[in-house]
């Protein structure tokens, strides 16, 4: 179910993975894996900002500009996760099947991976925003960052 969810999410933006022979790797391993890691990354960053920095500790990092920095960080880390996991999984698959990619296929693969990386940066940012709204009521000093609703 998680597989379907993330596959639908990523394919809605990127379309079917290219080259087609790697589609099973993407659908079974990369999309759900990266999706889940990204979700937990966003959750960890949200908890870091709202609970650690603004409840457990007393820091001056409660403003919207600080939140924006963490949002940016989530996008960067999301992109990194996507690239690392996708490259690793694809390399493992190619090694285990001994498949050699044609030159054209290698180019489309690279292009798709870049698209996936960029998309996951957006996905990470999106998750961070959504989880911010869920988590912010746990905060003391950042309850109203970046906006007051729903607190």
């Amino acid at each position: 179910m998680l597989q379907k969810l993330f596959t639908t999410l990523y394919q809605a933006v990127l379309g079917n993975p290219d080259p087609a022979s790697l589609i099973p790797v993407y659908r079974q391993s990369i999309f759900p894996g990266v999706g889940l890691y990204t979700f937990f990354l966003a959750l960890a960053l949200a908890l870091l900002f709202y609970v650690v920095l603004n409840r457990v500790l007393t820091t001056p990092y409660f403003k919207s500009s600080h939140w924006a920095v963490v949002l940016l960080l989530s996008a960067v880390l999301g992109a990194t996760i996507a690239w690392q996991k996708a490259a690793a999984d694809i390399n493992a698959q190619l090694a285990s099947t001994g498949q050699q990619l044609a030159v054209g296929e290698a180019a489309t693969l690279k292009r798709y991976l870049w698209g996936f990386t960029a998309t996951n940066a957006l996905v990470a940012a999106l998750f961070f925003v959504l989880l911010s709204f869920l988590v912010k009521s746990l905060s003391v000093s950042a309850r109203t960052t970046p906006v007051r609703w729903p607190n």
Partner: protein
Amino acid sequence: MAKLYIFGIGGTGSRVIRSLTMLLAAGVRVPNCDKVVPIIIDPDAQNGDMARTVELLKTYERLRKQLRLTPDSNDFFQTEIQTLASMAASENQPRDARVKETFVYNFGGMDESYRDFLHYDDMPVESRLLVDLLFTPANLQSKLTVGFKGSPNVGSVVLNQLVSSPEMEFFANSFAEGDRVFFISSIFGGTGAAGFPLLLKNLRNPRTALPRAELLNHAPMGALSVLPYFNLLADDGSAIDSNAFITKTKAALAYYQKNLQKLNALYYLGDQSTGQLANHEGGSAQQNNAHFIELVGALSVLDFMRQDTDYLLNNQPLHYEYGLEEDVRQVDFKALDPGQSRRLVGPDLTRLQLLALWCRHHLADTEQATYANHLQLRRAWREENFYLDLQRFLQDPQFGFETWLRELNSNERQFAPFALPATEDLNKVVNGQFTETGFFNKGITRDFVRVKLDKAIPAAVTGAEGPTAFIQAFSDVLRDVVTEKVPGF
């Protein structure tokens, strides 16, 4: 709902009421009372001190009207201050259109000369001769617009009209069981020295025409008489000569000794003066810097209220004086007696100073904090009347709290409890009582206070509740801050 009626007579009355208002703003509890009704009696309608005090009182009243504080706590602006006229609204009395909505007794703009006031020209010869005996030609010629210029003999005649005024009638009507009256005047001035005994005599007169004479006759009444504490520069053009202050004091005291009847408590305050103020006869230029004595005068009001009614009524007359713990020219909290005064005003004034510092230096930088967002402070601080009034109360260059502290700090017996000019460092607020800081303990930092404020206002507050939430949060948080972090109280 016991009330305290304060008659502040003359310039000194205004100035003591000013200090008292600051103490009430700091949250100092007035025992046995929920409401203070100041009535300022000063024929000099332009008096600078009075104008300042009236502005301050109006601001306080406006602020207080927007707050719904828990009774018996000690938040900022805990005690209500109201005009006499607005007593109608709270007591469900019919409003009297003749009583103006103001803190000042309206003398009706006396711009005639004393001579015309007495209808000198219509007097029979015998009376005229008596008048010539009692009053100098200068007295007779002087215009009454600026008070009595240090001549109590003039004042004692003119102020008689007070008693039959609609204000007094209204006052008597709204007087209830448990209410108290306090008179503040200077013994050496003109208005004060004359007015106080006059009023007292009339209120205690069993045959007075005022309603509720029974109540008035037996209510606890106290008075503060301020002895000389400043000199004026010699000025030949002025009718006021400060060299004569002592003489006049002695004369007044002699009168009091024999003729002050039925006063429950009398407070004397004075100080050896070394400072010299500019000689202004009256008008808007009569605007003296706040003096420490006035603050002590405010303490006398609190002390009066602290006594039980029975104690006051059965032990008259009680006489009080005041002594510092140390006779220093620079008074800070440590110079106050630890048993009473320091405990009474120290923490609360510190709290108010912290509020003033916060509003000036730290509020803008925490506009995105949770507490500010919940109060919508970003917008409200610049637009809503309550916050504008609060800023005026604290920061107005004429009558504000910060100005008051500066004046006290620059006067001859300097009252300098706080490090001035104030900086944004919240650890260095109270002189001699700086907060300790160390590697792990940063003392009172902006974040420290901010987090406490965030915890005090955890949910959004709708418009009408905003001011109350603001005041309650700051009162609680700053009280905790003072208790935890400021040593020596």
